[in-house]
């Protein structure tokens, strides 16, 4: 009787070791690869905006479809900061000794998407900033397994994330 109990336990352990752990490790690798793909396309997307000075609907759609092709769903946050040099021009006339007295106006994802849908593009100018951050919203296999074994709880956990930001280097035209 005791022997068979041990055997059953041993079989369970063996099954976990032989199937579940490799599966966990495999699924984590998949997420790593996805993360890399997401990071690369985020960087490319942001850098394109930075060097061309414009954000087009086409580029945005392409970016979204690239990251979605990893098989996950994502929450994409874009933030554009528009530089306003006017206060600097006004307050510091002939004896201006300070620099950096500028303001920024922010645009967030929903406003950006609305603008893109209406005009097909957003033009930016030199000195504006753009930042994109993404994280997955679905549960990947590795997250499911981890939750099962490690009892991780909460909605805010994510496995695949990427972010990139920078200053726009050129005035966008057309």
């Amino acid at each position, binding site marked *: 009787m005791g022997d068979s109990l041990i055997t059953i336990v041993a079989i369970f352990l063996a099954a976990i070791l032989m199937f579940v752990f490799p599966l966990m490790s495999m699924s984590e690798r998949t997420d790593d690869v996805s993360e*890399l793909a997401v*990071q690369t396309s985020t960087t490319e997307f942001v*850098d394109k905006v930075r060097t*061309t000075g414009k954000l087009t609907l086409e580029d945005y759609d392409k970016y979204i479809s690239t990251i979605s092709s990893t098989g996950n769903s994502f929450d994409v946050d874009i933030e554009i900061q528009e530089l306003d040099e006017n206060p600097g021009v*006004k307050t510091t006339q*002939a004896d201006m*000794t300070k620099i950096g007295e500028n303001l920024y106006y922010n645009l967030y994802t929903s406003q950006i998407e609305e603008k893109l849908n209406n005009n097909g593009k957003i033009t930016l100018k030199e000195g504006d900033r753009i930042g994109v951050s993404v994280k997955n919203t679905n549960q990947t296999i590795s997250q499911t397994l981890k939750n099962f074994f490690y009892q991780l709880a909460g909605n805010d956990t994510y496995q695949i994330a990427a972010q990139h930001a*920078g*200053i726009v280097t050129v005035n966008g035209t057309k």
Partner: protein
Amino acid sequence: MIRFGLQTSYTRKLQTATADAIKSFQLNTINNKYSTVSDSKIRDIEASISSFYNSLGTELGASGYTAEELQSFIPAMVYTMYDGYYIYGEYWNETLEGDYKYQYGLRPYIYYSCRYKSINNDFIVNYTLDNTITVYGIVNGTYVTKSGSLILTDLIKESSIQKKQYDYTDNVGNQHHCEYVVAIQYDGITIEPEILKEQLVTINEDNVIDRQEYEYVTYSNRKIYKDNNGYFWNNKNKKQYITDIETLKFAECMTWDGHLHSNSGAQYYADAYEFSKWVNEHLGNITQENAYEADGVTKITNFAITTKQEKIFDLTNENNNPLIEESTFNQNRMAVIRRTIESNLASAIANYGAIADYEFEMPLFTEEDWDKLLNNVSLATFMQGIPIGTKYYNNYCIITNDKNKEVVTTDSIYVITDSNGNGVYDLDSLDEVHVATCKKVIDEEESVIAAYRNIDFERQNVVITEGDERYFYPHANEKCYHCMVSAADNYDMNDLIAGTMKTYSKNTDTYEVNNKATNYINSSNLRKIYLTALAREKYDLYKTNAYFGT
């Protein structure tokens, strides 16, 4: 895994360094009063190159590369200028001692040129980033050198050209007679003399700093300012009163009703008209099929854009308006520039061979990147041969420089509206600065009163003494929140030049004529002021006009 990470990180570093190089070039040229002089320009470029290496060196510092080591991974840097370009890279220097005679440096300036041959004709056309060309070689059997801007000749009304006669007596009593073009009609718009003004900071003998508004006019590429004591040049922030007769003659002729006027706009169109008539008559039949390699034997067949039998320099054809991007002239201009950059750059990169186990080759540019290179002064940098995992890094970066003293593009003119409603342009007031195609200005039919170049709105510095540096704005106006602060959707610049405004209709996915906007730009001052300013700034900037007529 490592490879992708490194690749994006190198690309980012290359971009940052290129942007820094452009920024340094901008700052140096804006504050350099002589930056259009060739030697001075080379100095600005070299400063920009060193800031590129500094920036890249700092960024890659953590990965263990120094600026010198980096040089072997940067096969070329290309500075495209108004009428040609510089390649920075390795070249063979015969005067060096030793066997290895390669040296890093700026190669000689290369023009955007193309040779055309037909019966009785064998000449070279130097293109530029806009509608100005230089023609030299044999035209109709005689050798010529001519330079000027191309416009549609039918748009000028010859009878509308007005000249101002003036008799000037110099200080020794000699009489001089002079006449200058002051008005001309272009495309239904009368280009008239304008009063230009800007703020200037000067220092007098007692080192007192004075910021004031002066009227100015540009003559022979130099700004002449007017104050109560006469006319002066700005010489290292000091007033240098003018005694040169040629200059005084011009300045006095241009002064009436107590104001100094600029006739550059009208003069530009008058010169362009004369040149275009000549081009029409002599080069009117030239097509892309007349294009030859520099050797004059091989026909060029591999242009990126083919226009076949279409006449490049036919300026009577209204579909060939050189100011509009889609014209045959512009297509050829871009094809020529692209071809010369491509071939010279490809050979410069391929011949670069400091590292034995890596073969340098020029990466393919995207169409979007070509668009940047062909329409504005820009910098292209290349980084190749850094080992990443099992492969080698190979990428490039192109950043345009839209604040420079090299070229006036259609985008570089900003207009000012009379926001405080007093009817005149005040430099230091609420009068707002806009992009010429600003939706708010056009839709709300605001009153436009002046237009200047974008770099005139940039902050400039004045060095008083070592360590005491002051800043000022030649035009300290507030920038519009609809078009400049938040560069949203504006009308198309080509439409403004052509005089018919169009708006995008989402339902039909086409551009439809907007009657209200078209009516406004033609009935108000907007189009007139814009076209005058565009011509004026071009005329005042380019030295090439000096060749004209010889």
